[in-house]
């Protein structure tokens, strides 16, 4: 119980730190960049919108920093992130809500796939140590881990989109299609998701393979595995029930963490494929100096990670009693 309380306490603290960072960053920068942005949009904004921007960025107000800060916290706590400047007159929260499903669909599914496939491959490579597969996979994925993943996306666009013309590579669906819950539209959406998903899968799967393989290699050297071998248990049983089962914990906690990174984890893939998710919106906001939208998205991405970490900590404590006593 004490452990859970401490984790929740840390969660709240980090959340506060992220909000505070959001508050101070624009104010710390030389010549408050928000000032230039406000000047640009001055004529177009309604009085109400202008006011909420003043609270968010501290422009034009003559309050002390402290009272600005209190104001800011209040506004963020009530979910008021102001009006998006680029998607004016939509509220920031509206834009964000529209982007979330796209990211969850694309990156969420890909993350699960990468975890399942990668862990499986890791088990097999560790089990067949010295085989050709084991000789090939680790070095290959050491190298792929160093490739910028947005560039892999660009190469996929070049090869499968532009040269071979197999698949579409821009946006989440055809601009000519009317969105709706019908067969053709869903097929269209799926078609548009294949290339970005593949690019993401290729670049993320290596970590799962390597972690699983390396943990399992250590576990395979343990006495209880040798014991199982000496008892003459079938290889498959040792591989799954003895070795993989005990080696999977690091991958499982990593998986829980990576679920948190789904929301903000594929920013550049979305950017390269013009995929209308959270990451694409974040870069749109950056490019067009839409700071209110940018702040809200950064906070959303951080909160997602924090929640995932909290849940994975609690799950680890439940699954592995040793971690509880260690604290």
């Amino acid at each position, binding site marked *: 119980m004490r452990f859970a309380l401490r984790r929740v306490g*840390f969660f709240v*603290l*980090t959340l506060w*730190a*992220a909000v505070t*960072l*959001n508050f101070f*960053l*624009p104010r710390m*920068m030389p010549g408050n*960049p928000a000032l230039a942005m406000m000047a640009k949009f001055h004529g177009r904004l309604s009085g109400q919108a202008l006011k909420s921007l003043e609270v968010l960025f501290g422009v034009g107000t003559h309050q002390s920093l402290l009272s600005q800060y209190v104001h800011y916290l209040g506004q963020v706590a009530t979910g008021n992130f102001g009006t998006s400047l680029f998607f004016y007159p939509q509220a920031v929260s509206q834009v964000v809500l529209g982007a979330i499903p796209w990211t969850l669909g694309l990156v969420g599914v890909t993350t699960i796939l990468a975890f399942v496939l990668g862990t499986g491959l890791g088990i097999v490579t560790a089990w*067949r*140590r*010295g*085989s050709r597969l*084991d*000789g090939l996979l*680790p*070095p290959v994925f*050491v*190298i792929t*881990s*160093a*490739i*910028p993943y*947005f*560039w892999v996306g*660009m*190469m996929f*666009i*070049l090869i499968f989109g*532009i040269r071979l013309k197999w698949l579409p590579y821009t946006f989440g669906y055809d601009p000519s299609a009317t969105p709706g819950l019908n067969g053709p539209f869903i097929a269209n959406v799926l078609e548009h998701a294949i290339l970005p998903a593949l690019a993401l899968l290729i670049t993320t799967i290596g970590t799962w393979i390597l972690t699983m393989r*390396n943990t399992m*290699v*250590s576990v*395979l*050297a343990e006495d209880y595995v040798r014991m199982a*071998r000496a008892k003459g248990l079938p290889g498959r049983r040792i591989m799954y029930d003895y070795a993989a089962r005990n080696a999977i914990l690091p991958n499982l906690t990593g998986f829980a963490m990576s679920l948190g*990174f789904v929301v*903000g984890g594929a*920013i*550049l893939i979305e*950017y*390269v494929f013009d995929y209308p998710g959270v990451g694409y919106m*974040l*870069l749109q906001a*950056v*490019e067009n*100096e839409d*700071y209110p939208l*940018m*702040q809200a*998205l*950064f906070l959303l*991405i*951080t909160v997602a*990670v*924090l929640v995932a*970490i909290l849940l994975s900590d609690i799950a680890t404590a439940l699954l592995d009693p040793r971690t509880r006593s260690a604290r």
Partner: protein
Amino acid sequence: MAMMRAPVGPEDAGSPDAALAAALPAGGGRTRTAVLGRLVRAIRANRKATAGTIILVVFVLLAIFPWAIAGGNPNAEVYGRSLGPSTAHLFGTTAYGQDLFAQAVWGTRQVLIIAFGAGLASTALAVLIGVAAAYLGGLWDGALNLLTDLLLVIPLFPLLIVIAAYVHSSGTLVLIAVLTLTGWSYTARQLRSQALSLRHRDFLEAARVRGERSIYIIVVEIIPTMTSLIVASFLTNALYAVLFASSLQFIGLGDPNSTSWGTMLYWAQNNEALQTGQYLWAVVPGALIALLGAAFALLNYAFDEIGNPALRPMRRRRAVQRRRVRRG
């Protein structure tokens, strides 16, 4: 049954690879050339380390002497526009009439400066904070540890984007500073736990009894024992510095007038190089980033194998054992 040849850890501590880890911290007693000789031997004994070192050395040479193979100002818009590859322009030219080969060669410099600058600085900061937290203990440990944890859980790339967005077109120094300030936490966490495990060792007690100051004990007694972890951390941090800096430049948050691979990608993307058939403009800089990243990743993986013998490929192990038998 491949498994029966499975390695058992400790007996391997005497292999030449592991000797590297042991030799570096203890270097004081030996001459410098002996340590260097061991390092060279360790690199040559591990194929991944050999490949990584060769790639890295080539890039360092390119960064120092770019004019040797690509003269002139790489940003000068003096050639024909969007030319294909030829003997005059190995990779062709950009839509602005710049030579892509020259840009690729001259771009090495900034990337390497960022990789080594941010890699070294963030590792140094991590050493300072991690070891200080572990050694000082108490309130210091609590505060530094909390700071580390906070930074550790805030998603790094979005944070970098937000900071860079406020800064507007970050040059080399700004990129290094931002990457350093945001990138030290993971290493600090690792070093802290390593230092914690050392805290009550005899040689530290002895130093304390001798009345040495904390700073002396940290710098001279504790840090040298962690050399291999520090080197591995530096390699990881350098790799991430390359990837993050290039990514930021790619989305236009770097200095668009600088010559670097990330900036090349930015201009390629802006001019729709892929859609207009100027493939090399996008392919070359990305491949170079991947190659440099691979060098760091390979060296890091090799270091992992040196530190954890169980991970080494099987064939290598037998060769090592044979050599040891021959020597013994």
